[in-house]
């Protein structure tokens, strides 16, 4: 076992070395003290930190415009806190999640890690991140301060592992110029199924395929995810033991979406990003896309666009959403001061999440969301109502790969390789095997 540990560390050291070389370090290096005390209830839960100076490493996946805003916030924090120096390392999200476990087990991982809500359970079950119940308690954060779904998403086995920073739902983007050309009122985007199909018919008459259906996770898969919930379906049963995305509502939702291609409202074989590029160049009128595109569209003055909550196509409102959470990484040798400092940082950034909203995300904290300053951020604020009915992915360890199976099933349906029913049935069969594997692996 000891030998294994050693070789494992040596192997992983390689990858981490490469990662560190690519890192963006803001703060300089100082001498962090290392008292070998136990972590867990370190510090006073993030109220303040008066100990010796600590250096904290933070990892995130904010590679877009949001990354700059995040770094500015960190710089501000560092100037306000002389005894805490936070340095930021940014990876692509996909690389990020594959690098993190190795880095942590080799002892070169970060102190604070930003994580999507649906990844929390996986990393909590794997013992990568520590419990944060005391942070929530000391800071008197409770469900009331956050949107309930987002707040509950930070829990795993009734313990808190993540402090939510924001939520990012799918929004309904509409190209005003294209709508105008088709004789539609660009200030009145469709909100119901009838309005939506009527608008698509008008667009078709003007020679525009109005709603390009992408077969990929971004954005077609997330569109289908939203519609499935609008039809009243669920991806999994309540215990996340069985996949249910082949239920009748799911098949109906999928059929509705795929039929748009057959009816000529979308071209077939839409490529990755082609739906969004067509939207920007005036070949596509409607695009259901992430809230993060607001910043990109703001940089394109030629595009006349608007954003609204997703129209209600099914029997209820629903929208795909996810949330960024702060987590504290468990270290091989725990350092109480570092944990205490990390909690101060998390609390501070949570309070300053209005600035984060300017990065194109809805702040998780209610007081920030209800402030006048946030309301002034017109576009981001337009999507805040979706918080009430946002459909977040469920919390279960190892669910990431199972959700990819869901997206792949949709891919086959949207590319007309299989009928919606067949594609979803096959997907569910595979997902159930994956869920069973996960149960064996994580033991629940």
């Amino acid at each position: 076992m000891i030998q294994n540990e050693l070789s494992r560390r040596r192997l992983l050291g390689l990858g981490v070395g490469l990662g560190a070389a690519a890192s963006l370090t803001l703060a300089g290096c100082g001498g962090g003290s290392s008292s070998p005390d136990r972590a867990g209830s370190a510090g006073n839960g993030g109220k303040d930190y008066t100990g010796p100076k600590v250096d904290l490493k933070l990892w995130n996946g904010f590679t877009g415009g949001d990354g700059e805003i995040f770094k500015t916030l960190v710089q501000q924090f560092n100037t306000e806190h002389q005894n805490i120096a936070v340095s930021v390392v940014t990876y692509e999200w996909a690389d990020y999640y594959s690098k993190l476990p190795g880095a942590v087990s080799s002892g070169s991982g970060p102190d604070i890690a930003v994580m999507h809500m649906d990844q929390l359970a996986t990393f909590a079950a794997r013992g990568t991140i520590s419990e944060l119940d005391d942070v929530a308690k000391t800071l008197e954060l409770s469900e009331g301060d956050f949107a309930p779904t987002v707040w509950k998403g930070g829990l795993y086995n009734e313990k808190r592992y993540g402090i939510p920073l924001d939520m990012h739902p799918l929004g309904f983007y509409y190209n005003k110029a294209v709508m105008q050309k088709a004789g539609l009122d660009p200030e009145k985007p469709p909100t119901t199924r009838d309005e939506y199909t009527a608008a698509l018919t008008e667009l078709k008459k003007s020679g525009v395929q109005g709603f390009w259906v992408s077969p990929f996770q971004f954005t077609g898969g997330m569109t289908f995810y939203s519609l499935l919930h609008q039809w009243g379906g669920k991806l999994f049963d309540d215990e996340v033991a069985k996949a249910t995305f082949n239920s009748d509502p799911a098949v109906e939702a999928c059929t509705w979406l795929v039929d748009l291609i057959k009816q000529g409202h979308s071209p077939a074989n839409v490529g990755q990003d082609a739906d969004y590029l067509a939207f920007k160049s005036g070949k596509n009128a409607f695009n259901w896309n992430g809230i993060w595109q607001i910043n990109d569209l703001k940089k394109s003055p030629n595009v006349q666009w608007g954003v609204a909550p997703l129209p209600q196509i099914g029997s209820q409102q629903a929208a795909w959403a996810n949330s960024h959470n702060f987590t504290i990484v468990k270290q091989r040798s725990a350092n109480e001061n570092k944990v205490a400092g990390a909690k101060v940082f998390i609390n501070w950034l949570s309070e300053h999440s209005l600035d984060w909203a300017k990065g194109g995300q809805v702040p998780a904290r209610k007081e920030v969301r209800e402030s006048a300053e946030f309301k002034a951020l017109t576009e981001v604020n337009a999507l805040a109502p979706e918080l009430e009915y946002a459909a977040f992915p469920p919390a279960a360890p190892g669910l990431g790969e199972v959700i990819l199976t869901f997206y792949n099933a949709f891919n086959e349906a949207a590319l007309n390789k299989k009928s919606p029913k067949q594609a979803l049935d096959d997907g569910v069969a595979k997902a159930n095997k994956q869920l069973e594997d996960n149960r064996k692996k994580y033991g629940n």
Partner: protein
Amino acid sequence: MADVIEVGAARNDAPPPAGRTRRRGVTERGNRSTPYLFLAPYLVLFGVFGLAPILFGVWISLHQWDLQLPNRPFIGLDNYQDLFSSDSAIYGDWWSSVRATGIFTLFSVPLLVVIPLGLALLLNRSFPGRTFFRAAFFAPYVLGVAVIGLLWRFLLDANLGLVNRVLGAVGLPSDTPWVTDVPWAWISLVGVTVWWTCGFNAVIYLAGLQDIAPELYEAAKVDGAGGWDRFRHVTIPGLRPVMLFVLTTTILASANVFGQALLITQGAPGEQTRTVVWRIVDEGLRDYDAGRAAAMSVFFALMLAVVSVVNFRLFRYRED
């Protein structure tokens, strides 16, 4: 110093070295360890970064191995059995990825062996602008897979891409789903890879062609051999070792296809263009199941070893 002289002495046309007897003892003693000393730097690197990881990988493949979960039970050949039992969660994905890599290799290797040979023959002639063309054909190879992947994904896009636009302009079908449906996705992947890497193989052939003595061609000509005969009886035999190298490295490179599929087709439709290496990366680094990923790697390496051995045997047989 003594070694240099000894090497010189091995040549038939070299003059007898001076001071041979005086230094003989030293040289002979050096002889025994010298080869190993020269081999040592590589041997150490190979041991640490080649052999040890391979053995460790085999060891991992016999366990239910997760980088972080403390419990790593020994499960014997279960990981291998999962690859062959249709009840396991990975069976379908695994064999579909083997199929994808197989298709890609089957179509890309012949093209990558033949087209560069043709290119090399053309570039070996003397004509104005030869250096320019040599550089032009090699140029794509210096680009990274991310660059060519993104570039071609947008060029090949069914609805917005330049390729379909151009095809439409000349009266051909303009709605071919180059990256989202088979067989088109395979044509795209193989085509892009040939465009990307054929310059490399061509340069190797070119070096091989320049190694063939011109006298052989002259002699063949005197004996009345035509262009085809000269190619068949002088060029091909002269290139045999080079061809073996090109074929072996091309098969291995094609079997390792990953970046093109990830970026250009993203596995679509469904998972049909998801390749073996991609599957192994997902299993090991996305799903953190190092045991299964290692079993896949070992099995895949064995398959490639068999192919390579057959390959060598085939060429050696012909030589005899």
